[in-house]
Structures are given as C-alpha cells and as structure tokens.
C-alpha cells in the first residue's frame, strides 16, 4: 500500500484512488508535496500520545525543565548554597571578635574557602558553633516563598541548610551534566559505531575490542579511578574537577551507543537502498551521511532518553560511597545532599531500634527523602518517555 496520505500525488492518481468525495480529476494547484519526515513525526507523536505513562513522564520532565530554567534565572547568592566546608574546615577562631565565630564560606569563583565572622547563635541555651547566619538561610531563591530549612548533621550539632534551594540548584546541576554527558557520549558513540559497522573488517574488530574493554569496567569504578588519577596529575580546582568527572563519564558512556549503532548499521548496510546508492556511484561518505546514519539513529534516541535519567543516579552512587567528587559535603546536587544524610546512619538506626518504633528517631529523613524523590522522579519520568518513544518508533510493535 502506498502511504500517500490524504493528498495523493497527481501523476499517478486514477479515479477512485483518493478519499471518498474526491472528484475524478485532481487539479495541480491542490497538490501539496507530502513531507515524509513530518508525517513520520506526526505518526510517532500519535502513538506516543496514546501511551499514558509516557505522557505522565513527559509532564514530569516538563516540570523539571521549568525548575531548571527557574534555577538559572533566579541565581541565589552562592554563598548561601556552598555552605558547609566539610573537608576544609573553618579558618582559625582568633580572627573574629569575642562572641562571634568564624563560619567557613566558599563563594563562587574562589579557589579556597574563606571565613566570615558571625555572632554565635544561642538556641535553647545551647550555643551553636557551626551554623549559617539567619540572613542567609531565610533568603529564598527567587519569588517563590519556599524557605524550607532543615536541621541535620551529626547528632547534636545542627546546621541550617536551605533544602529547597539545594533541590532547585541541584536540578540545574543534574540536568546540565546529564545532557552534556549523554549528548557527547551519544555523538561520539554514534560516530564510532557507524565507522565500525559500515567499514567492517579490521577497523570493526579493533573498535569492537575497544568497546568491549570499556564495557568490562564497571562505570562507577572507571569514573572514580580516572578522577583519582587526574587529581594526582594535578587537575585540581573545582571547575577542572567537574570537567574531569564529565570526561570520565563520557569515556564510560560512548561504548553502549557504539554497540547499538553498530548493530543497527549492520542491518541497514544490507538494505537495498544502500546497494542502490553504491551502484549509482555514491561515495562511502555520502552513503554514510545520507542513508546509513539517519536510519540507524532511532535506537540512539531511545537510549539517550534512558541515560539522561541514569547519570544523576550514578553521581549519587559515587558520592554515597564516600568518594569526594564535590569539594563540599553539602554541594547542591541531589545525590550529595542525600548521601550526606546517611553519614551517621548506623548509630541512628541503632538508637531507633533500641528506642523502638514511634519514638523520635533523630534521623533527618527529609534530607534523604526529598533529594531521593527528585532523583527518582527524574529518572522515572525519563524512563517513561524513553519507553514510549521506543514503542512509538519501533515498526514491529506498531499497531
């Protein structure tokens, strides 16, 4: 069946071939060139729309993108967010006048922490030495009035942290890093996969061995080890560290794409239109560009949408192990915030168990739950979208 849609192509139209109501003659002026790509997009969107879970995922994703934009636009003061200099500690006490303590701060753009002097707050008769001044905590991020504070940390020494701001900024972080990593990984994987699949032979073997090598090392480990080595070489400083982390992730990510694309290219390569293009004299590069690549790219889209959700999870895992990817313990990244809450978990659990259920277990569950929920919702919405895309794009599963 020719998929000419509702507007037939005039050259071949015979009476009775168009939709009912079409007169026997088709005038040239009503002819509209059908755009196959647009039609395909519309078709894909139709199947996607019918998938409730995919639409739910899309909705949540839109929400996250809105949060991302919000975080970009309303840049709160960074000192509010780079809060707790865990590994670096506060500079000496003596620089501050009496009754004040020096609080460690790490403003954006600086390479080492500094200190500011603030008056020691006394709450319930207890002076708190590690804290953030109230002016900072109550300043919210932009017009929305969520100023949720959390008290957390080691049992007995609270500090204040604006969880809401951390979550929004975390959206910025997670989204931008995920997209950067996945996009770069996908593109490099696509290129390598196409070359390996199309040219075959020795090139294919070598590239596939390379892919296998990178796939054999568990991702977290490779990232950790790369950052470790980079650190030793001398890549210090925060921005460089982040770049190193992104680079390490990309290095672990491209093999999946290379494999997928190569599999697809192997199938596409045997198709008749490639043979026809070759017979009509197209060069290798042209065939790759015009025929092979556009047709092998669909599984990449699906995999990309899956992976965008996985990156923040991996970062969270690395932070949870205890590996200092970020310079501050309470870095505004979902995984970091959540992981920090579990530092003293065993003792707390022990207490809780002894005290029995129902008693006040001093575990800041909200510090674990909300970033965790953010991670979860992000990943799951992306997964729904990816699955919907896969079902919509796969010609074999189509109804």
């Amino acid at each position, binding site marked *: *069946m*020719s*998929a*000419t*849609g*509702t507007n037939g192509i005039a050259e*071949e139209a*015979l*009476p*009775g*071939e*168009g*939709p*009912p109501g079409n007169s026997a003659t088709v005038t040239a002026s009503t002819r509209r060139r059908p755009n196959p790509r647009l039609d395909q997009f519309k*078709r894909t969107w*139709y*199947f996607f729309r019918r998938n409730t879970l995919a639409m739910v995922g899309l909705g949540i994703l839109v929400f996250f993108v809105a949060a991302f934009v919000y975080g970009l636009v309303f840049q709160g003061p960074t000192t509010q967010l780079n809060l707790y200099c865990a590994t670096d500690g506060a500079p000496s006490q003596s620089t501050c006048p009496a009754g004040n303590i020096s609080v460690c701060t790490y403003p954006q753009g600086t390479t080492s922490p500094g200190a500011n002097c603030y008056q020691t707050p006394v709450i319930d008769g207890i002076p708190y030495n590690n804290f953030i001044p109230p002016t900072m905590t109550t300043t919210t991020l932009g017009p929305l009035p969520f100023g949720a504070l959390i008290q957390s940390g080691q049992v007995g020494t609270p500090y204040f942290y604006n969880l809401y701001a951390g979550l929004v900024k975390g959206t910025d972080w997670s989204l931008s890093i995920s997209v950067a990593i996945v996009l770069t990984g996908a593109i490099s994987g696509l290129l390598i996969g196409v070359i390996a699949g199309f040219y075959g032979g020795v090139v294919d073997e070598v590239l596939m061995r390379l892919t296998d090598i990178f796939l054999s090392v568990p991702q977290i480990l490779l990232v950790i080890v790369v950052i470790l080595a980079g650190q030793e070489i001398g890549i210090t400083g925060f921005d460089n560290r982040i770049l190193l982390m992104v680079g390490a992730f990309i290095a672990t990510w491209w093999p999946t794409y290379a494999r997928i694309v190569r599999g697809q290219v192997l199938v596409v390569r045997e198709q008749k239109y490639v043979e026809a293009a070759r017979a009509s004299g197209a060069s290798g590069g042209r065939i790759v560009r015009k025929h092979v690549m556009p047709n092998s790219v669909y599984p990449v889209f699906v995999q990309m949408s899956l992976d965008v959700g996985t990156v923040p999870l991996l970062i969270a895992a690395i932070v949870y192990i205890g590996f200092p990817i970020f310079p501050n313990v309470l870095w505004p990244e979902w995984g970091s915030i959540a992981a920090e809450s579990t530092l003293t978990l065993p003792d707390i659990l022990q207490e809780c168990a002894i005290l029995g259920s129902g008693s006040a277990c001093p575990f800041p569950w909200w510090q674990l739950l909300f970033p965790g929920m953010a991670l979860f919702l992000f990943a799951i919405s992306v997964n729904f979208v990816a699955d919907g895309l896969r079902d919509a794009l796969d010609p074999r599963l*189509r*109804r």
Partner: protein
Amino acid sequence: MAIAESTITTEEDQLTGVRERPVPTTAAVRPAATPGEVVLDVHDLATYFYTYDGVVHALEGVSFRVRKGETVGLVGETGCGKSVTAFSITRLISDPPGRIVHGTIRYQGANLLWGLDREAKFKPIKNSKMVKVSRKFRRIRAANERMRAVRGRGISMIFQEPQQAMNPVFTIWDQLGEALYLHRGIELLDSLLAATPDDPEVGPALDAFVEAARPRNAEQARDAARRVAMAVQVPSFETELLQTLRQASVETDFDRPRLNSMLKRFRLTPLQRSWLRRERRRLELDRETCDIYLDEMRDGHLHRARKAAVRSQRLPNSLRRFPLRLWGINRHVQKPVKRELYWQSVRLLEGVRIANPAQVARGYPHELSGGMLQRVMIAMALSTDPPLLLADEPTTALDVTIQAQILDLMNDLKTRVGTAIMLITHDLAVIAEVADRVCVMYAGQIVENAPVRELFEAPLHPYTQGLIASIPRVDRPEKALFSIPGSVPNLIYPPAGCRFHPRCPQAMPVCREVRPPVTDEGNGHQVACHLYHGKTVEQ
C-alpha cells in the same frame, strides 16, 4: 506414510488379537470418502486491517469451495489478498491490527468463524480515517483455542519461506515429532505399549533380515524388515532397520547382537509403561476436547457440560506430571517416545524423498537448503493426513528446478493420500501444472472461478484475460509485451463498484457503481463481471 502405518496395525490386530486398549474411533476426523464432497466452503469472507493510515479492506466478499481430492489454485498479483485468505481460513491473522469482520467458513459442517460478531465492536472515529476496535480478548482467545481442533488435523498449512518458517533452535525430528505426537500420539503410544520385542516370531525374522542384509539385496531386505516390524508390532522399526543398514559400512558385520541392542528400545520399564498410559489418557482427553470444539462449531453453541466433564478428568493427570519433572525422571520416561518419534520422522522424510533422512532428521533447519526444508514442511503438514492442505506460495522462494520437484512431490502425495490442496501462488505456470480448478483474485475479491483448462482456453473476466495475455510467448517474438495498465488500487479507499474498473478496457458506467454479482457461465465456470449475464450464483 501414516496411512500405511495404521493399516499395518489393524492387520496385526486381526493376526494376534492382542491389544491393550481398544483403538478410539477417529471417524470424526476423517470424512467419508465420497469424491465431489465439499471439504471447505468459504462464503462471503471479509477481512479488514485497522491501521493508523485507515482501514485496509483486504478481503471483501470472498467465496469459493474446495472439494475432496481437488487442487484449487488461488492466483493473483502481490497484494491482492491471497495469503490473507489462507490465514483467515485458519484464523492466523494477527489480531491487532487485523480482524475477520464477516463471513462463514464451513469445514465438514463446522463453521470455523462461529461467534465472530461477538468478538469485537467497531466504532468509527469522527474526523479521521481510523476506526476504533474494541476487542474482547477472552473471546478471541477462546476462538483460537477452538481452532486447535482444525489446525494440523483437518487443515494443514505450508508457508512461503521455509527457512523462516521453522524454529532454528530445535532439530528437524523434534519439530516433525511435535506434529506427529500431537495428532497421532494415541496411535503411537498404543503401538509402543503393544510392542512385542520378545515375540517368538522376531528371532527368525531378524535372522532372515541379517541374511538379506549381507548380499545387500534391497528387495529381500525390505521384505525381511517388514516382517520384523510386523513381528514386533511397531512399523517404524522397519525404517530403523533399513536406515541403519544403509548407514552401516560394507566392512562391518551387521549382525544379531547389534539388532538385539536395537530391540532394546521396545522393552519398557514399569515406570515408563505407566507414564505412557498416563500420556495416552491425556492425549485421549485432548482429542475429545477437540471433538467437542468441532461439535460446538457445528452446532453453534457451547457445550459447557461436556468440556467441564473432560476438564475434571484432566486435572489429576497434570498434577501427577509435575513431580516427575522435579525429580528429573522426565528424560528416562520420555526416551522410548522420543526414539519412536525420531524414527517416525525419518520415515516421513523418506516419504518426501529426502536423501539420507536419518542424518537430516538430526540436523537443524539452518543446515538445510530451501528445497529440502520445503519438503520437510510438506512432510510435517501431511503427516497427519489432513483432508485439506493450504499451501501459501510454497515454491516462490525456490528456484525453478526445485520448484518442479516440489510440485511433483505434492502431486504424488495428493494421489496417494487424497488430500485436497489449496495452492496459493502468483505463478500461472504452476497453476497450469498442478491445479484442477482456479480462483482468480483481484484486490481482495474473487473475479473468476473455473476449471483450469477452461480458464486458460476461455478466460472471461478482463483481468484474467489481461493476465494470460501478459504471459510472454516464445513462439511470437515480434509482439510487444503486454501489461495491464495502471496499478493495484489502495485498499484503504478501494474503487467503488467493481474494483477492477479503473483499469478495465471494457469498463461500463454500471461497473463504477454496482459490484458485479457472481454468475455461472456453464462448464463450472463462474465469473464476477457485468459483461456476462449468466445465472446468478446464490451465495
């Protein structure tokens, strides 16, 4: 072949009178042997496919009959709905998106499409070319289950690309054996249970065989093998003997100890025996269920009580089978059956003239060529002696020489077994060779239906005339090649009235509006065209 085998068994009954169980009557499966009797009656079949692009009216008002022993050819261009017809008959249409909308298919009086209208509801979507189909999956699954009574036993199918049609991870004998066990399992188990390897007649028969084997006298060997098989009461032993003989090299002695060890497979341990009896009971219940299904389709209402009765008998059986699997005894108890199935499938392969059948049976589908695989498929389809065989373009994927062999084989089997064949193809030459009767299809409708000679000598429908005219003639080289102008219509918006009218050189104004009725033009020649005004055939 299977008929020969069951003949032996019956003879043997009369000779020794020893049987463990009475043979169940399979009369319900095999129709009365009257030539001219209608095996399949398709009436007003309509199948649509509900897709994103709209509703594809693949089949519209298709009607024809297949009589016993007849080969009916279904011809048409690619995309005219031939395969869809075959799949509709056995209800193998993939249900989303396809749907048999309407029609009756009578097989031995049973309407295979019973209950069709209650399986789905249709609701057109406004402002769109799509139709919303709400399917009742439970009913559809039940209908599928009912079709099991007919598929394989009554109507067998062979498909177009044999390499794709066979399961790549199972051996050939495994797949052949599956079909055999399913439909002929009871007879097989009976013969196993009744085998008498220790019969006093076996010894001398084996000696005679060894005698015949040494000088390699084929005739004598075959007779001797047959005698041994009769003595043991298992027909497939004949095949086993002959094949082993063939494979034994000239130097080695083909002697009694070896033959005795071959006989071992008939000595069943009590555990095996009890399992075989249990299996036989289960297969009997299966067969009964299939008969009930046929009756349901025949009578037009459910036989719930009978099904419940069968189900109540079945349950303890299945519960008892499960522990066997857990204890790993399965392999032990199944060995005699598997051996028997192996040799029976070797026998089937012999029947379809495959060289070296013992080795081929042990191989996998990807090791065989297309021609051989198609023979295997034919063996599989005909192993159960079905009254009707649907062949969906069996030779399209094969080259011409193999094609000739396959058609020859099909002819031969047809005369031996008496199966009716419905051959679907686009190749008129094949039709001319093999068919007794031809149905010409165009765009989902049957346009002409005639005996084969009639069709070629006096085609009535303009489409058929065009088809025959476009066959290149070697004896008229100066003529330009003829082709029917235009192309196959889009079945989402089929032409109104006669679907061929846009391309018909003799189209009249009425063709554009009214669908032509099927008229009888004498000599068994029916045509659907406004040009002819014969007696309208009552559909």
